[in-house]
């Protein structure tokens, strides 16, 4: 079977500790490899997921290790979809500017580099708030 015709879905539920970032990276890497992405693109996907989960640990859960992070990865029709859901404080990406480092240096406020990177690395990024005070970010990468 051609890798672009594969269909699969994987899920991971973990606690919001930085120790789990390695597990998240491994989970993401395994799924991206199975989907047939190049090593370079796999590196970009892993970095995007790592940054998204780091944001959840830092901003949504304020470093509390007891929060839940639910990650679902789905691959179908050459579309690699990572859905990350948390139950922490609401995060409004609209308030985050899109700096490169020069603008980041010049601005007075800190933060926002992670969101900037995620948008650079992925083809589609969508943040939303779900019922039950859940936050969700969907990251998409197309297998070209």
């Amino acid at each position, binding site marked *: 079977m051609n890798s672009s015709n594969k269909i699969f879905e994987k899920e991971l539920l973990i606690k919001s500790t*930085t120790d789990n*970032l390695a597990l998240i990276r491994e989970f993401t890497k395994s799924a991206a490899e199975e989907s047939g992405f190049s090593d370079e693109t796999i590196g*970009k996907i892993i970095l995007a997921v790592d940054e998204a989960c780091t944001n959840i640990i830092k901003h949504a859960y304020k470093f509390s290790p007891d929060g839940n992070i639910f990650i679902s990865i789905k691959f179908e029709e050459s579309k690699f979809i990572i859905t990350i859901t948390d139950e922490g404080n609401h995060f409004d990406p609209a308030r985050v500017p899109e700096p490169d480092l020069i603008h980041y240096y010049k601005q007075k406020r800190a933060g926002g580099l992670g969101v900037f990177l995620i948008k650079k690395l992925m083809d589609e990024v969508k943040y939303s708030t779900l019922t039950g005070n859940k936050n969700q970010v969907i990251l998409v990468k197309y297998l070209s």
Partner: protein
Amino acid sequence: MEFKLEKIGEVAIIHVFLNRATLTKAILFKDFVSEIISGGTVKIVIDMSICEYVDSTFLGAMVALLKKTNSLNGDLRLVYNEGMPSLVFVLTRMDKVFKVFPGLDEAVESFSGEKPKLEWK
């Protein structure tokens, strides 16, 4: 030990002994360097030559420290492996903000002579 301080004249070299410079060490790093700056040393070289990965949080800490040294007429300069730059370095165009050097000697020597000045490329 993740960080080690070495002084050469007016220049402080901070060796970063991390393969992954990330969120988990960013606050510790910022506190470590801030204390050196508070002690009056504003010419700083960060030796990241063994770092294979830098995340946005650690990079953000370095930018905050760069701003601090610049506000005190100093500078914070980097040594890292340009042959294998972290993806974060590339995507954020880090070399446009920090002065980057391939080796420690070049980085330390760059502070001799005229006062350091940040130049936008």
